[in-house]
């Protein structure tokens, strides 16, 4: 075997892609935070932002090795724990032409955003300490195994399941986990008695725009090189959300007579979710069609979810689990070997692929549901999962974080930082 050489183009693209995907997690914070009410906006944004700390560290130290080292069909081994052996020398199986550190970082961004996606299921109520414990463990216990099954040499990959950039690993997984989390943590105290209206819709649009931008790295980078496969994945990522937006807008026009901003933002995300597993497998014209078709299941799932008594109000299940499953199945329909050099799907004559795809979805969903359930129950033994009624009523920003998103400063009085110290200013008023 010739000595592997670091390819500058591949590295340049993969560094760019990694930076792009990192940006998706704060972008998700804005997407979710803008939909939260104005008393929970920081809490919602912090749920995304803190995965970039707690989950990322857990991934770097443990998760990466469990997911991507050889191990067995169910889990990797511990050879890369503590970043041991993750160095600059190219030649690794999954990313032969770039530095292994960059592949670790690239995969970390996937793991982190998947974890952050789950937070959409429990906005406005989860105790933040319990949340931090949850995201630190979930990335290792739930995400890493599923990633191993599909990409790390595990059983789903061996079965021939196609998942280019994470339809099942990322989206089915996160969507199912969000629903389970919503059920285990429980509804907001005033759920069903209060209409939750988005507090900052421009932030939702900003989040969606930055997600799309970052997703070029997500899908395009999943080729692990700057080559034709990357170009294909990139182009599908470009076309599919456009198709979804058109179909979604027409559905909205038919149903309520109006194109909506939340609808446009949702459509972009759903289109991206749907194309994710397919992006490196289907020709661009099918990518565009998949985007359009993919609008339907998620759109109607959102209508239907709104009538359920479960407080999964940001629709992570409808958007990501339904969208991810749709994309995974349609990958089995539209894959064309002439484009992807790997496998044909149904329309190119390989009907069996659809079943393989469905199996992968089911496997990932089952483990995600189980793992999330057990994990939350265990954490719930140690820490209360839900904040109290009064804390929710006052808003999670003030009660969990001691901050307000938008403050004018009236009636705010400075006090000295140390506990027990005398107030610095005479204007400090005692407690009535």
């Amino acid at each position, binding site marked *: 075997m010739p000595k592997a050489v670091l390819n500058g183009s591949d590295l340049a693209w993969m560094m760019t892609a990694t930076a792009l995907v990192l940006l998706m997690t704060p972008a998700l914070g804005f997407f979710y935070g803008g939909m939260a009410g104005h008393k929970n906006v920081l809490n919602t944004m912090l749920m995304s932002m803190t995965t970039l700390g707690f989950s990322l560290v857990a991934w770097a130290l443990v998760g990466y090795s469990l997911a991507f080292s050889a191990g067995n069909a169910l889990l990797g081994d511990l050879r890369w724990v503590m970043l041991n052996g993750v160095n600059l020398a190219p030649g690794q199986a999954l990313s032969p032409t770039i530095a292994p550190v960059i592949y670790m970082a690239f995969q970390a961004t996937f793991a982190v955003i998947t974890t952050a996606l789950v937070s959409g299921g429990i906005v406005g109520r989860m105790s933040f300490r319990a949340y931090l414990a949850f995201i630190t463990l979930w990335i290792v216990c739930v995400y890493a195994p599923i990633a191993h099954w599909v990409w790390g040499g595990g059983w789903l990959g061996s079965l021939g399941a196609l998942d280019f950039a994470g339809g099942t690993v990322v989206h089915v997984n996160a969507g199912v986990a969000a629903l389970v989390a919503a059920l285990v943590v429980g509804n907001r105290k*005033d759920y069903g*008695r*209060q209409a939750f209206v988005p507090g900052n819709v421009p932030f939702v649009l900003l989040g969606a725009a930055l997600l799309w931008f970052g997703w070029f790295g997500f899908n395009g980078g999943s080729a692990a090189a700057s080559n034709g496969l990357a170009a294909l994945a990139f182009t599908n990522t470009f076309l599919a959300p456009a198709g979804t937006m058109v179909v979604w807008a027409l559905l909205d026009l038919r149903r309520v007579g109006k194109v909506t901003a939340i609808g446009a933002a949702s459509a972009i995300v759903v289109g991206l979710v749907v194309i994710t597993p397919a992006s490196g497998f289907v020709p661009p014209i099918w990518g565009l069609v998949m985007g359009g078709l993919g609008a339907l299941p998620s759109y109607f799932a959102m209508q239907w979810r709104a009538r359920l008594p479960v407080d999964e109000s940001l629709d992570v299940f409808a958007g990501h689990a339904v969208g991810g499953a749709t994309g995974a199945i349609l990958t089995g329909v539209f894959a064309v070997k002439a484009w992807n050099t790997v496998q044909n799907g149904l329309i190119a004559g390989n009907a069996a692929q659809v079943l393989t795809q469905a199996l992968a979805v089911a496997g990932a969903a089952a483990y995600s549901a189980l793992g999330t359930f057990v994990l939350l129950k265990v954490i719930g033994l140690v820490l209360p999962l839900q904040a109290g009624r*009064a804390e929710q*009523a006052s808003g999670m920003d*003030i009660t969990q974080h*001691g*901050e*307000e998103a938008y403050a004018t400063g*009236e*009636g*705010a*009085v*400075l*006090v*000295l*930082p140390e506990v027990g110290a005398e107030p610095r200013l005479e204007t*400090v*008023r005692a*407690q*009535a």
Partner: protein
Amino acid sequence: MKLIIAIIRPERVNEVLEALYRAEVRGLSLSRVQGHGGELEHTETYRGTTVKIGLTEKVRFEIGVSDHFVEPTIRAIMLAARTGEVGDGKIFVLPVDKIYRIRTGEQDSAAVTPVMVS
């Protein structure tokens, strides 16, 4: 005629609106205010700085009513806004000399009697 001003908790707004609706009070205006009373102050921390926030978010209702509506309106607000915790708020009843409906120029009681459209 009276002008009823009620300062209540934001989380009770929908209950109060509903109670007023049942009491057949149709016209009202509301706005966000910040209140100080016996509530516990909370602190916020920005890096090294600790800030005591002495004001709490409240919602202020302003309702012009004819005299025989005063009692039912107050009762409706009292029941719907009460939690029993410090900070439930206050109601003020003010005398009013005159009320006009801008659209029609109607005055006083007529001005605050809802038009029966349906």
